[in-house]
């Protein structure tokens, strides 16, 4: 049976440096497919979608809200041609009811141990409209190595430099942050994968550079330290979301190859200043993730925040505007306060203001968002700061003999296209 798994394209933000990382959801889902399924994967951001290639069954994997409308269009087209379509992934769970109107079936939850049932139903012509496993998560030890072989690997290179591979060591998150839907999607129970499963997967990844996509590694100190100890022999270099800033954790993280971490910066406190310093003291770079448009934010406070980011010498900064994704407290609050200005999901790209900020006009917040990017990268452009980060990792790789030179044959290509 030919199962075509599609990752819909989305419009990148204007002026944003284009990065196409190998998607994680589809390769994790593909690992849970029955053996008799012949899966073909299409990342529509990089590949052309052919509706006439004889798929028996189509799966649409959506991670982002900005993918949903395109996902629905693709489904409508396949269904017009009589091909059954099932949806899954994070954004499917966030937009399940709307997605149902474009789908033969919607899968909610985590796929491990569930796909035998789905595909048996498909073969029997008895596909259910909804497979609801949102509150019946599979045992986390069922999560095996992701099936990265479905990716067309040469597409994920920029001028010969390979993009990081995505990897996860746990699911769920005990935190429940204001703009985040993870509590709804993965549950509030932290579910670490067994270390032997983590090691098994790390051993299958032939890429020295990883992005550990766990929601937060700072969930359990003992586990976090055990994870880093387990990772040391693999000599990978990696970025991740937040890790704890205790010296013993940072020591191990550095030994395990911590390259840079994402750190949310909400204010100009000494707490943040010291935290960033501790990362830097351990040779770990920091990419700040800065959400603009919270109810605390005035024009002055945003300007002060940008100055602060420069002062604490963040290595990179990624600015976003608050976006009320469904199933977040931000959505609940702004909906009940009648402050959501648009439900056009194509605009939910974290770069467009779709709500009424408390202390300024939406247009002013939009201008401040652009100002933040320009101001932070005025003296050192983003590409130069990224080059510095890459240079650091190359030095470390050379020191431990893991450096892989860039691919000369792909030096003139960027994500499969001819580089300008």
């Amino acid at each position, binding site marked *: 049976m030919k199962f075509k798994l599609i990752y819909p394209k989305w419009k990148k933000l204007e002026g944003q440096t284009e990065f196409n990382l190998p998607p994680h959801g589809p390769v994790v889902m593909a690992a849970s497919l029955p053996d008799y399924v012949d899966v073909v994967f299409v990342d529509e951001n990089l590949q052309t979608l052919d509706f006439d290639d004889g798929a028996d069954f189509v799966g649409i994997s959506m991670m982002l809200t900005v993918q949903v409308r395109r996902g629905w269009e693709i489904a409508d087209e396949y269904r017009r041609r009589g091909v059954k379509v099932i949806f899954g992934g994070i954004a499917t769970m966030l937009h399940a009811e709307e997605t149902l109107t474009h789908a033969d079936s919607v899968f909610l939850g985590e796929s491990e141990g569930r796909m035998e049932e789905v595909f048996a139903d498909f073969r029997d012509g008895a596909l259910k409209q909804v497979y609801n496993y949102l*509150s019946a998560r599979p045992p986390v030890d069922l999560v095996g190595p992701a099936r990265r072989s479905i990716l067309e690997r040469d597409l994920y290179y920029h001028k010969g430099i390979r993009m990081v591979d995505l990897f996860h060591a746990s699911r769920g998150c005990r935190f429940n942050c*204001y703009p985040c839907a993870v509590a709804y999607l993965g549950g*509030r129970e932290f579910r670490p994968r067994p270390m032997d499963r983590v090691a098994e997967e790390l051993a299958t990844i032939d890429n020295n550079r990883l992005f550990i996509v766990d929601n937060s590694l700072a969930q359990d100190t003992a586990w976090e330290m055990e994870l880093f100890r387990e990772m040391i022999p693999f000599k990978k270099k990696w970025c991740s979301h937040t890790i704890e800033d205790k010296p013993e954790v940072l020591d191990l993280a550095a030994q395990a190859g911590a390259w840079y971490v994402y750190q949310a910066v909400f204010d100009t406190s000494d707490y943040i200043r010291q935290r960033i310093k501790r990362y830097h003291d351990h040779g770990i770079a920091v990419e700040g993730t800065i959400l603009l448009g919270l109810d605390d934010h005035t024009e002055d406070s945003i300007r002060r925040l940008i100055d602060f980011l420069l002062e604490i010498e963040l290595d990179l900064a990624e600015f976003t505007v608050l976006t009320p994704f469904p*199933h977040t407290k931000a959505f609940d609050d702004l909906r009940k306060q009648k402050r959501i200005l648009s439900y056009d999901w194509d605009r939910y790209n974290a770069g467009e203001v779709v709500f009424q900020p408390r202390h300024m006009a939406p247009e002013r917040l939009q201008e401040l968002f652009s100002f933040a990017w320009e101001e932070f990268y005025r003296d050192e452009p983003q590409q130069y700061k990224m080059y510095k980060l890459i240079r650091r990792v190359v030095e470390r790789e050379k020191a431990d003999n893991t450096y892989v030179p860039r691919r000369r044959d792909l030096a003139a290509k960027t994500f499969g296209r001819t580089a300008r």
Partner: protein
Amino acid sequence: MQDRFIDDIYEFRGEWDVPSLCGLRVVKGEKHHTVIATELYDKNPGTSITAFVEQLAAMICRDYSLDTKRLVFIVRCPDRGSKLENYRERFDRVSFTIDGGDFADPDWSEITREEAAALVGEDGDD
């Protein structure tokens, strides 16, 4: 300290049947049948009150035999002790279009803590 706006933990099946919880105080007075539903944040494994307010209000009215004509439905988001403004305590009175047992068109209006306390016959002090 005892939370004076919660007498009970109400268990319900939220969106997509996910087990969910909220805090509940129900006062059946002569003039009003007043409900204060409190978000439990970290203690709630499932759907928020706001996301499910029409269905939740209907369930509570049914389970507590409340008169929908006299219903005053209040949603409370308690202070989480965060530095963020978004986590300050907030009370909203929610009005609905009610047709039989079906609730629709929720509309939220912010009220003060004192107004909420007055509606349940308290002074509002913890």
